[in-house]
C-alpha cells in the first residue's frame, strides 16, 4: 500500500513539513490569540472617529436588540451619515451570566464600543481598565445633563457606578430587593397586609400563618445569588459580606450635578469601596441560619441557584406566599399570567436596620473603542426617557428615572404598591460587587448550598470567609 502513494512525494518529508507548519501555526495561534486578547493601552484607542459601525453588547434578547438598533439608527446617522450602530444581544439568566459571556467575547478579541454593565461587573471592568471613565464627557455636557438626567436619577444609582472617584457608567435602571406577596395567599391565611414599617417578627408571623392555612403552599422562597438572596436578610440585619466603605473623591460630580444642600447627596463620595471580608460575622451567621431554619420549619423550600425563573414560576402559580423581588418582578409575574391585584409588594422587613440592597445597570464605553465620542453621543440617546421602553418593554426592570415611575406604567401589570420600588433606594446599599466579584459569586453559591444542605450556617460561612480572604488578597 505504501507504494501506491508513490516514491516522488516522501511521506517522511511531508510529515516533517506538516510538523513544522503545525508548530508554526500553533505558535502563531498562541501568539495572535494572546495578542488579540490583550487590551490596548489606555488612551491609545483614539476617540475622534465617527465613521464605521459602533458595536454594542446588550443584555437581553435579539428581538429587543434589533428594535433598539432600528430606533437608534436614524439618530446615529445624525451624528455622522457614515456612522451606524450594531446592537448584539447576549442572553443570560442573570447579570453574572451576561458578564461571563461578555468576558468570553473580549477573550476572543471582540471587544465592543459600548456595553451594558451592571453593578456586578462595574468594578471588575473599571479596575481592569476595560471601560473608560466618563468624567470628561459628563463635565463637558454637565449643564444639559444636570437638568435632563441627574435631576431625575437617584444619586445612589450614580454613586454605585463610580469607582475610585470616577464615573464609569450612566445608569438607566435598577432593582432594589423588596418583599413581594401573593395577596390571595395572605388573605386565605388570614394574614394582615404588610405595612411599610413591618419587621422581621411580622414577616415570621405572616409566614407561620400561611403555613398554618395548610395546602401545598409554602410561605417563602428565595434564590442562591448575591442580589436578593439571604443577603437581603443580611443587609436588614445590618451586615454585609464585605466591609462597607467609600472611595474618596467624586466632588467634581456631586457639586455640579445636584443642587447644593440636596439631602440625597449627603455622604456621597467616589464610589463604594469593598474592604475586608465579613462573611462569618455574627450578622451573617444569624441571617443565613434564619433562612435555613425557615426551611427546617417547613416555611420555605430548598432554594435554587441563580436565575430566579423557577421561583417566579412557583410564585405565579400560587405555590409560594412571599419572596424577594425588584421592579423586574412586575413584568415577570404579569408575563407569567398574574393579573394586577393578585400580588403586591412592600419594603423589605426591618430587622436590626432598614438597610436593603439594590443593583443597577447602564452603559459604559470600552477603553479600546476608536469611536468614544460617538459612543458617548449614543449613550446620551439611550438614557433619554423615551429610550427606556424601547430597551425594557413591559416592566422587566425598574426605571432609574423617577419621572418614569408612574401609576400609568404599572396599571397593566401591577403591583398596586409600585412606589416601593423607588422609595426602597433610600437607605439602601448596592450589592457588594468588588473587582473580584465573579470569584465571590462562585464562593457564595458553593458555601450557601453547602450550609443549606448541612443545616448549619457557621462552618460554611467560616469557609466562605477563608475563600474571600484568599481571593481578595490575590486580586
Amino acid at each position, binding site marked *: *500500500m505504501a*507504494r*501506491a*502513494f*508513490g*516514491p*516522488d*512525494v516522501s511521506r517522511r518529508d*511531508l510529515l516533517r513539513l*506538516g510538523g513544522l507548519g*503545525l508548530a508554526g*501555526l*500553533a505558535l502563531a*495561534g*498562541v501568539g495572535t*490569540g*494572546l495578542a488579540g*486578547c*490583550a*487590551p490596548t493601552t489606555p488612551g491609545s484607542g483614539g476617540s475622534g472617529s465617527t465613521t464605521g459601525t459602533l458595536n454594542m453588547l446588550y443584555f437581553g434578547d435579539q428581538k429587543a436588540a434589533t428594535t433598539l438598533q432600528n430606533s437608534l439608527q436614524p439618530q446615529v446617522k445624525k451624528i455622522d451619515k457614515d456612522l451606524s450602530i450594531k446592537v448584539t444581544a447576549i442572553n443570560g439568566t442573570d447579570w453574572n451570566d451576561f458578564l*461571563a459571556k461578555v*468576558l*468570553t467575547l*473580549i*477573550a476572543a478579541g471582540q471587544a465592543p464600543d459600548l456595553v451594558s454593565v451592571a453593578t456586578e461587573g462595574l468594578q471588575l471592568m473599571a479596575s*481592569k*481598565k*476595560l471601560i473608560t471613565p466618563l468624567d470628561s464627557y459628563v463635565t463637558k455636557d454637565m449643564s444639559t445633563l444636570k437638568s435632563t438626567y441627574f435631576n431625575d436619577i437617584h444619586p445612589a444609582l450614580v454613586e454605585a457606578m463610580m469607582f475610585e472617584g470616577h464615573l464609569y457608567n450612566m445608569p438607566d435602571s435598577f432593582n432594589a430587593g423588596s418583599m413581594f406577596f401573593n395577596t390571595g395567599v395572605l388573605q386565605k391565611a388570614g394574614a394582615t397586609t404588610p405595612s411599610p414599617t413591618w419587621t422581621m417578627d411580622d414577616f415570621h408571623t405572616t409566614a407561620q400563618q400561611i403555613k398554618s392555612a395548610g395546602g401545598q403552599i*409554602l410561605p417563602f422562597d428565595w434564590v442562591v445569588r448575591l442580589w436578593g438572596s439571604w443577603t437581603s436578610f443580611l443587609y436588614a440585619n445590618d451586615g454585609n459580606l464585605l466591609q462597607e466603605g467609600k472611595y474618596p473623591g467624586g466632588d467634581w460630580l456631586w457639586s455640579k450635578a445636584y443642587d447644593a444642600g440636596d439631602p440625597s447627596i449627603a455622604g456621597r463620595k467616589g464610589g463604594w469601596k469593598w474592604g475586608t471580608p465579613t462573611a462569618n460575622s455574627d450578622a451573617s451567621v444569624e441571617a443565613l441560619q434564619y433562612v435555613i431554619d425557615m426551611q427546617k420549619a417547613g416555611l420555605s*423550600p*430548598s432554594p435554587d*441557584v*441563580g436565575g430566579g425563573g*423557577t421561583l417566579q414560576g*412557583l410564585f405565579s402559580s400560587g*405555590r409560594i406566599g412571599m419572596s424577594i423581588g425588584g421592579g423586574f418582578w412586575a413584568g415577570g409575574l404579569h408575563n407569567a399570567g398574574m393579573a394586577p391585584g393578585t400580588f403586591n409588594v412592600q419594603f423589605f422587613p426591618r430587622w436590626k436596620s432598614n438597610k436593603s440592597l439594590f443593583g443597577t445597570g447602564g452603559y459604559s464605553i470600552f477603553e479600546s473603542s476608536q469611536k468614544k465620542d460617538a459612543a458617548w453621543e449614543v449613550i446620551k440617546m439611550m438614557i433619554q426617557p423615551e429610550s427606556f421602553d424601547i430597551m425594557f418593554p413591559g416592566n422587566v426592570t425598574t426605571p432609574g428615572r423617577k419621572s418614569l415611575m408612574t401609576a400609568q406604567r404599572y396599571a397593566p401589570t401591577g403591583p398596586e404598591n409600585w412606589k416601593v420600588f423607588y422609595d426602597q433606594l433610600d437607605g439602601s446599599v448596592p450589592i457588594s460587587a468588588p473587582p*473580584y466579584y*465573579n*470569584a465571590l*459569586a*462562585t464562593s457564595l*453559591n*458553593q*458555601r450557601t*448550598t*453547602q450550609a*443549606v*444542605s*448541612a443545616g448549619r450556617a457557621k462552618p*460554611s460561612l467560616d469557609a466562605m470567609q477563608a475563600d474571600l480572604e484568599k*481571593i481578595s488578597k490575590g486580586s
Partner: protein
Amino acid sequence: MTAVASVPRASSREERPSQPVRRRPGARRTARREAVFGYAMIGLAMLFVTVFTFLPILASLGLSFFDWDVISPPTWAGLGNYQRFFSDEPVLQSFGVTIAMAIAIVILQLSLGLFLAVLVNQRTSTFGRTFFRTAFYLPLLASTAAVSIFMGYLFDYQFGAINYYLGLVGIPAIPWLTSPLGAQVTIVLIVVWQQVGFTFVLFVAALMSVPEDVLEASSIDGAGPLRTLFRIKIPLISPTILFAAVISLINAMQLFDQPFIMTKGGPGTATTTATIAMYQTGFQNLQFGYSSAIAIVLLLLILAITGLQFLASRKLVFYQ
C-alpha cells in the same frame, strides 16, 4: 476512482512477480496522481484535526505557563500554575468527584447496556430488536441541556414529580439534588439513563456478530445460557466492550452539562467536576492560565487512564 481501479494490485506477496517488471509508460504519473489524491484526503482530515484539536491543545498548553485574566496582557508563570494545582484542595477535590462519578457511570453504563443487549438479543424478533434499539437510543439524541433542565424539575425536592408520586405511596421526599450524596447519585443515574443507548447499540451489534457455529458447538458441548454468555459471548465481544469502556470513560471524565445545569456543582462542591472547576476558574474567576493547566492535567489523566485500559486489555480482551 478509475485511476485507482486501473492500478495493478501488488500488495500481496503472491501476486508480486519474481522478476523485475519494466514500468509501463504513464504508471509513474498515475502513481503520483494517486499519491497526491491520498495525501489530499488525509490532508483534509489532518487540517480539521489540526485546527480544531491540536492547535487548541497546544494553545492551552502554552497558556498554562502564563497568568492571564483575559483583560491584562499575559505574564509568564512558568510551572506556577501546575504547582498551584497540586496544592489547590477544591480543585483536587473536583478531580476526586470526577473520578468517582466516572467510575460509577462507566460500570453502570457497561453492565446495564450489556444486560439489556443480551436480553434483547436472546429472545426478540427483528422488529422487537429494532424497536428496543430505537427506544434505548432515543435519549442519546435529546439535547443534554434540555434533558438536564427537565430532570431538574422532575427531581426537585419540594415540587418535583418524583417526590410527589413517592409521597402518594407514603415514601417521604428524597433530597435528590439537595444533599451531597443524593446529587451525585442522581446525576450518575441521569447520565447513565441518557448514555446507555450508546453501549446498548454497540453490544447488540457485537452479539449479533458472534458466529452461530461457535454458539452451536457450545450448545452441543452442553453449555447452558449463562456459561455461553460468560465463556463464549463476552470473550468474543470483548474488543467491543473495551471500545465502549474507553469511550464511556473519556466522556464521563468530561462530565459538565448535567451537574452544571441541575446543581451548579453543588450542594457545596459535591458535584463540582473537573470541567466545572475549569470553567469556574477560567470564565468566572478569570484565571485562564490556571484553568488551562487544569485542562492539561485532565487531558493527561484521561490519557493515562485510557493507556491503563489498553494495558489491561492485553489480558482481558480476546481478538479473533
